[in-house]
Structures are given as C-alpha cells and as structure tokens.
C-alpha cells in the first residue's frame, strides 16, 4: 500500500470530533462525525489509515443521494414490497423492467436534477436528460420517450424580491427548457410528456425531474453486473474531467446563497453528440451479445460503478486508474475516481470479445479503454502507476448507514372552513383560472421539444386541429415495429394539494396518474416516483415525506401496478425556504391498439356528455381557492377501489368506441375540464348541473376519480349499463354543439363563453410572459 506518493495522501481519523468535522468539511465528502467514526473503526481493523481516495469514495457512497440513508426505511416499509405480475425486475437496477409483450420488456426510469438546475439551469437540465438516458440504455434498452416534470416559482415574481444568489424564475424556466430541448432533440429521443408547475415554494429551489422509457427484447436484457472473474472493465464515452466532482454530496445538502460560486465544480454542460453515438455503440455491442454487464456512470462516478457491478455478481475488481482517459491534465487519483463527468458507460467484456467491442466503438468514433479486471475476492483494489492506493471490502462501501429520523407534524391552523364571499360572476373566475400559468397551454414548452422523432408517437401531448390543439391527458408511443400495442405516458402531482395534506395529496397524485391513463384508453401498468422533499433532518420535512409515501402506497396497492423505479431528492431547501413536498409520479399504461387512443376534444355536435364519478365539497388548496386567496377546506380524498373499477370500465368503453372523447377532471374542476374539451376542435357544449353543492363548488371542486365523456346518443344505454354494472356513479350533464360553452347550475346560468374566448384565455399566457 502506498505511503505517500504526492498524488495520494493518507488521513488519520484518530482525532477529536471537531477535527473530524473539519476533515469532512475540507475534503467536501459531507460525511457526519458519526459516519467518520464508523470509518475509523473499519480502518483500525485493517490496521492502517484511509487514503484520500478511499475517504472520497465513502463520501460518495454514503451520501443521501447514493444510499438513501434517510428515506430507505420508509421506502422499504411501504413501497418496495408491492408487486405485480407484469414486473420483470424492479427497484434493483437503474431502471425498472416490465413486460411489454411476449418478446419485449420496457424500461422505466425517473430522476431529479434539481440542485444543478437551480445553479445552472441550462446545463443542469441537459445533463439530467443525459443521465436518465444512460439509466435506460444500461438495461440494453433503446430509449423511446422522455418525460420532463418541471417546477418553478411564479413567473410574475418581482425582481426586487429575489433573495441573494437566487435567479429569476423566468431565467431558470427558459434555461431549463432550452437545456432539455437541446439535449433531447440532439440525441433524437422524443420528449413526449411532462408537467410545468408553478408554486412560490420553488423560489430558490426549482425542481427538474426527468423520466425515460426504453424498449428491449427480452433476450437482450443486460444487468449491471459483471460476468465472471477475468472479465475486463471497459470504460467508454467522453473523457473524465473535473466537472461534476461532488455532485452527489452537493445534491445531499441545502443550497446556500453562495452555492453558485462554491459549487461550480458540480455543474456540467453535457455533450449530446458524444451521447448519441455512445447509445448506438452500447446497444450494438449488447445486441451482438458481446457484453457480460453494462452500467452507466452517474452519481459517484467510477467509484460507484465498479463496486456495484462487481458486488452484484459476488466478485471484486482490480483497477488501473491511470488508464482512464482524461479531459484535462493534472487530475488527482481521487478526482478521477469520483468525477461525475457525463456521457460515460462501463461495460464488462470477456477477453475473447474485447477486440470486437473496441471495433464497434471505433466505428462510432467513441473512445473506449480497458481500465481493469474482475477478481474473485469481494474487494476493490485501485492502482495508480503501479502502486495500490485503494483497498476496501465492497460491502463496507455500499452498505452505508440507514436512519430513522424523527418526524413531527407541523402545527397548522388552517384546517377550518375557508371564509370568503362567493363571487357573483363565476364566469370571470373561470377565465382567471383558465389563464393562470398552472392551467394555461404549455405549448410554449411542448413545441420546443421534438415530440415525434423516431416516428412512434401516435398521439402527442397536443391534439386536435393543427395550430389550435388542446392538451392530451397522456401521450402514446408505439415502441415495437409491426405491433399496434402502445405505451401511454403521463406524469402528475399537484404540489398545492401535497403541501396542504401530504397523505391525501400524494394519494391524489396516484389517482390523477391512473385517471389520465384511463382517459386515453390505457390500463395502468407501472409507476415511477421521484420524491422531492426538504431537509430530512427537520422533523416536519421528514413527516411530510413519511405521510406522502404512505399515501402513494395506499392507492397503488389497489390498482394493479407498482412503483418499478424511482428516486429520492431531499434537501431541496434554499435560504428562502423548502420546496413544497413534491412526489412526482410517472405512470405508464398499456393501450392494446394505439389507433384507438381517446382524445379530449369534442367530436360531433349533438352527442351526450356524462360525468363519471361524484363531485364533493373538496376545495382545499384548489385552483379556485388559490385565486380567491382562501385558506382551509378539505383536500380531495381517494377511494382506490372505485378508482380501479371506474378506470377499467372506462377503458373498455373507449376500446369499443362507446366513449368518443374523454378528459379527466383535475385542477380547476369541471369548469376547466369542459373548457379544455372545447378547444382543439372549437366545438362548444351546453351543460346543466343539478347537484346539491354550491354553484362554485360544483364548477371548481377538484374531487378525484372523475372524467367527462362524450357518447353518441345511440350508445347512451350501453354506456349507462356498463357503468351501472361496475357500480360506478355517473350523471348525464349535457350535450355537445354550437360554438359556446354554457353551464348552468340548478337552472341558473353561470357561464356562457365563446370557444374563441376560451382559446384566447388559455393559449396566450405563457407566450405573453416568456416572449
């Protein structure tokens, strides 16, 4: 073992607690004093002091981001045991694998890139896309769709109110969208769905979540583990540089007002034109059966990938670090070992296949080099110019600490009823809600993404007449040539609801996901979750996390699909405060014949409109209350059994074309759902509501498990019979036609608006603010 050779130093941990804290600070490892003591004990048994590269590796592996030390307890208790027959391999790999058809599986991954995007929106978001693509490629899967749920403070935020070090939401929003656009479009994977949500709590900590879905022949599935002793580790892709060092430890603490200068090295720009051929080369080598294992380099860099690939197969590794190709000279061994430079993949290859693999990478102009070999004993040995500088048991590195942190519900005083006077003119309120940035058209974002590259997007996020489209509830891609089966994709969460009630807010997110899928005619098949929360060391934030996870499990248990992969992002806190608790859900559904996808726009005049489900007095944190400045009220509840019954009944009705247009009811209630159905074909509707609720509640309540359906008069009986048999409540509410939306409640007309007025109110807001 090296003693001191200039490039590597040893650190004695036999020092006071204060000294340990100082070591953690100076090395930037983010390890706590207790964690350092555990490391000290380990090295005492080894009979020596750790080297800097060993300590750095532990800092990466034991970070919140890599080892889920605060969240693991809850995930294991509530989510991980859920299972579904279609799951092939879930939770354990970079992406979840679920059966698509007899011969194919699809891979699902969802991740956050919040901290980097807050500091450098363009590069942060772009490398988020790069990272999520790698997660899918390393299963051997061809990426077929990208998804981007993104969250910002209101665009109207006053410049003078920005805290120090915080960039304006417009700058961040436009940078994030440009980053996703420039990376996604350049690698040629369509960005088909997402969300764009605004809430003041994202000031200082925007959230950038990115998801990817890939398709793989079952025979080509490959895992993140080496094949056997003697296999070679081949590192392919871009050079390793100082960029991205300490990315994971940076993502595992709060942002400070000087983060933008102090955390520069965690920020990267990303090179899609290295990634694009890298994907081709990896998939080509895998399809030719030349690889024994494949994994991407993400958080923790080489340090994590080598250990995890070896450990998964029960082996160890010998690495010659000087063989790694570098972007810049003068890098220290520990920097090379933990750098998170983008666009890199690790393969394990038998010696016999090496030449064939290198030839493929050569054709694609992608660098690939052998950096080490698989060894029998479960330890990793790293050498630098012939001398050993790292020697640890893999399980010690990868096990990491696990905490059950204290939780405490916040003290709240807003549980009572909201008090305000019902406005006389609800039509004006409707227009205000329709033109609020959370609900208005997102086509400013959507059209910057190539949502149709690969020519498999059979139903995009914008549907209807060219250049006056409305939003779809989910996008549909048809991933296998010659097969009509489609994957429906959506992402959902309403942070306003979760902030007010983490349990029911999270449950509502799953409900919304399922009903968005059902609205296009798809059966829910799998979920991925990205749990974005505040500082887990604060009991209130930990409570929010624990309640939300339970809310997710409560609904998911009953709908026949489980969380097949996901990601936890904690410490989303800036000096201005924490982000609202945001459990983003990505839902994947199967649609047997993609050509039968339902869309929300009205199809022909004189058809009957039904409401499936029941409207209740559930206006807590609704768009209506927010516009009225009202606090209080009940957050919508979920009945998971009803959700399962109702969505199955609806999907069957869409499949046999009894339902010709469908839209789920969510933010803004029935009034907004109907308005959105009038767009895209500019046909109106005439609605009469007869419930016993107040007129404003009837229009704007956000109760879960509801849809509006268009049915031809001849099919009314079939529709009513099917729902009655499934024991699903429904109401006839009106009919389509004319070019106005009129809504009356118990005989009193509340709304009469032309479709062009609706289009105008809905279409323009983002264009006018963003230019």
């Amino acid at each position, binding site marked *: 073992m090296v003693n001191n050779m200039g490039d590597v130093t040893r650190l004695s941990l036999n020092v006071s607690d204060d000294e340990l804290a100082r070591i953690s600070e100076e090395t930037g490892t983010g390890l706590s004093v207790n964690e350092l003591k555990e490391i000290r004990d380990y090295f005492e048994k080894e009979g020596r002091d750790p080297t800097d590269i060993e300590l750095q590796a532990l800092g990466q592996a034991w970070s919140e981001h890599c080892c889920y030390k605060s969240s693991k307890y809850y995930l294991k208790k509530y989510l991980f045991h859920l299972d579904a027959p279609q799951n092939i391999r879930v939770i354990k790999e970079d992406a979840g694998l679920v059966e698509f058809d007899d011969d194919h599986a699809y891979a699902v991954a969802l991740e956050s890139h919040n901290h980097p995007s807050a*500091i*450098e*929106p*363009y*590069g942060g978001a772009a490398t988020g896309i790069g990272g999520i693509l790698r997660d899918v490629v390393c299963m051997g899967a061809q990426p077929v769709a990208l998804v981007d749920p993104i969250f910002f403070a209101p665009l109207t935020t006053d*410049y003078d109110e920005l805290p120090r070090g915080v*960039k*304006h939401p417009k*700058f961040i929003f436009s*940078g994030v969208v440009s980053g996703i656009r420039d990376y996604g479009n350049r690698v040629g994977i369509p960005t088909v769905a997402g969300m764009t949500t605004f809430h003041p709590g994202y000031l200082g900590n925007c959230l950038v979540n990115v998801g990817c879905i890939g398709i793989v022949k079952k025979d080509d599935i490959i895992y993140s583990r080496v094949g056997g002793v003697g296999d070679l580790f081949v590192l392919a892709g*871009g050079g390793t*540089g*100082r*960029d991205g060092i300490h990315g994971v430890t940076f993502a595992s603490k709060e942002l400070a007002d000087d983060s*933008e*200068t102090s955390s*520069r*090295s965690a*920020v*990267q*720009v*990303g*090179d*899609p*034109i*290295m990634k694009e051929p890298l994907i081709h080369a990896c998939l080509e080598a895998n399809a030719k059966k030349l690889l024994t294992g494949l994994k991407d380099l993400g958080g923790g860099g080489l340090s994590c990938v080598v250990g995890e690939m070896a450990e998964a197969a029960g082996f160890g590794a010998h690495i010659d670090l000087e063989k790694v190709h570098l*972007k*810049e000279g003068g890098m220290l061994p520990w920097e090379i070992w933990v750098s998170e*430079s*983008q666009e890199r993949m690790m393969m394990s290859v038998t010696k016999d296949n090496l030449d064939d693999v290198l030839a493929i990478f050569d054709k694609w102009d992608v660098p690939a080099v052998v950096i080490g070999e698989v060894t029998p004993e479960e330890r990793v040995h790293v050498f630098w110019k012939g001398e050993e500088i790292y020697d640890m048991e893999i399980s010690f590195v990868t096990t990491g600490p696990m905490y059950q942190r204290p939780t405490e519900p916040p003290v709240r005083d807003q549980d009572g009823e909201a008090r305000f006077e019902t406005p006389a003119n609800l039509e004006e309120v409707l227009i205000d809600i329709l033109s609020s940035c959370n609900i208005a058209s997102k086509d400013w974002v959507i059209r910057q993404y190539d949502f149709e590259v690969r020519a498999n997007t059979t139903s995009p996020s914008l549907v209807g007449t060219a250049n006056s489209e409305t939003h779809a509830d989910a996008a549909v891609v048809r991933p296998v040539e010659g097969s009509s089966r489609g994957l429906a994709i959506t992402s959902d969460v309403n942070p306003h609801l979760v902030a007010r009630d983490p349990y029911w807010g999270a449950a509502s997110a799953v409900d919304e996901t399922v009903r968005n899928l059902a609205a296009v005619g798809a059966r829910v098949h799998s979920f991925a979750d990205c749990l974005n929360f505040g500082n887990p060391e604060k009991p209130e934030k930990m409570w929010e996390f624990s309640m939300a996870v339970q809310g997710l499990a409560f609904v998911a248990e009953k709908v026949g699909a489980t969380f097949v992969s996901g990601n936890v992002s904690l410490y989303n806190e800036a000096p201005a405060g924490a982000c609202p608790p945001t459990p983003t859900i990505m839902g994947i559904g199967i649609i047997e014949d993609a050509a039968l996808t339902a869309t929300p726009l009205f199809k022909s005049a004189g058809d009957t409109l039904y409401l499936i489900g029941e409207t209740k007095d559930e206006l807590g944190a609704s768009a209506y209350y927010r516009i009225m400045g009202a606090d209080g009220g009940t957050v919508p509840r979920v009945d998971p059994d009803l959700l399962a019954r109702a969505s199955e009944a609806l999907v069957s009705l869409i499949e046999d074309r009894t339902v010709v247009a469908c839209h789920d009811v969510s933010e803004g209630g029935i009034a907004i759902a109907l308005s959105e159905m009038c767009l895209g074909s500019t046909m109106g509707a005439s609605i009469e509501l007869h419930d016993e609720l107040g007129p404003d509640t009837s229009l704007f309540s956000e109760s879960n498990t509801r849809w509006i359906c268009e049915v031809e008069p001849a099919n009314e009986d079939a529709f009513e019979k099917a729902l009655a048999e499934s024991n699903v409540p429904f109401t006839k509410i009106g009919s389509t036609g004319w070019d106005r939306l009129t809504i009356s409640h118990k005989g009193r007309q509340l709304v009469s608006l032309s479709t062009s007025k609706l289009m105008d109110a809905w279409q323009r807001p983002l264009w006018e603010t963003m230019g």
Partner: protein
Amino acid sequence: MEKEVTVTIGLKKGISDPEGKNVTKALSLLGFSSVKDVTVNKRYVITLDVESEEQIEQSVREMTEKLLANPVIHHYDIAW
C-alpha cells in the same frame, strides 16, 4: 445619444465545451491538422439610447447577468 456596446460571452475554463470540441473535431477531419483547439464565444452587439456614458456599464452588466450569461459557467466582457 446612441452607443454600441459589445458583450462577449464564453465558457469559463474547466467547463466542458461540446461546441468547441465538435468544431475542433470537424476541422481536423477536414484535414486542418494545425488546429489544436477551438472555443466558441457569442457576441451581442447592443445598440443603446442613453443619456450618459456612466449609465452604460451599469445597465449592460445588469442585462448580461439577468439574461445573457450565467456567472456560474460563463465569463463575459463588456466593451464600447
């Protein structure tokens, strides 16, 4: 009075520059073997209508930091 101000924006050292790298590669594939490195900057030529010279520096710096550049990865240079 009208003034033309030039803001040049480039990536800081150590930040990877895919554009520069790809141009370098393209030039070398074209046979320009003497090219060692290329970096790409953007130059905004801004025409201002201002009352005094003093205003310029301050307001152009603000524009740059609010819209054109991100000090985390960019360096910039203002000239007139």
